[in-house]
């Protein structure tokens, strides 16, 4: 498929909107995003998926999950507040959805991250790594054996 610059621009803007912080409080309906591009919702979703590897809905959920993880790991806000802010209908819904993505409950995740990295600054660095910051995180990771690390850089 070859997309026109105009169509590509439209899809790009839709993606930006879905990723923006404001989307959590005021999610723009997919039908609206589609109309802006002059497409039916079905057609819009198909093209979006072809270009960005996921549907608008999947991208929206992935971005919300990312923000939730950051809030749980780096702030002291209550799990309930974080869940409601992320658009969950209830604490129960939030827990279930989070567990489906992460394999553990929101509080379980919060506990695990704080236990693994008690230092606030280091925890922030691990979750919001700087360019090439991953290199020193690899070196620091205790899950890699010396031999494997040496082999990786051979």
């Amino acid at each position: 498929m070859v997309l026109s610059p105009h169509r590509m621009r439209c899809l790009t803007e839709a993606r930006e909107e879905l990723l923006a912080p404001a989307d959590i409080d005021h999610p723009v309906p997919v039908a609206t995003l589609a109309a802006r591009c002059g497409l039916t919702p079905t057609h819009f979703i198909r093209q979006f998926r072809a270009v960005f590897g996921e549907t608008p809905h999947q991208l929206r959920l992935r971005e919300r999950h990312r923000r939730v993880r950051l809030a749980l790991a780096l702030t002291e806000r209550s799990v309930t507040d974080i869940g409601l802010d992320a658009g969950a209908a209830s604490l129960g819904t939030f827990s279930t959805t989070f567990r489906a993505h992460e394999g553990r409950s929101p509080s379980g995740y919060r506990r695990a991250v704080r236990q693994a990295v008690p230092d606030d600054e280091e925890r922030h660095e691990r979750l919001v790594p700087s360019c090439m910051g991953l290199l020193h995180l690899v070196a620091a990771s205790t899950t890699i054996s010396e031999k494997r690390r040496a082999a990786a850089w051979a």
Partner: protein
Amino acid sequence: MRIKLSSIHVDDQDKARRFYTEVLGFEVSVDVPAGEYRWIALRSPEGGGAELVLEPDAHPAARAYTQALLRDGIPITGFEVDDVDAEFTRLTEAGVVFTQQPTTMGPVRIAVFSDTCGNLLQIYQPVGADG
């Protein structure tokens, strides 16, 4: 000093690893845990020495950068190929979306497509000086 690594930022490391290996054909050189993310380096089966690192775009600067390039239709990097037209056909059949079909521009013939992870990529084929 040797130039061995080239980094790009992707919006999801799993999605990126799948696309860059299964669709583009790169091989995984390293894939190990790195904090909350992974260190993923890819190499070309055609050789070349340098490796491509798929970094997360979690840092606000990385995200702003990739979004700005995407908005302006600027590829984040380019790969050399032997036959741009053949690659265009192969990738199109694999579902890849192009924003620029094969076009000769001076000493190269280029094409541009989406990497499904928030970036545009360019493939280029050197052509004769009188191309």
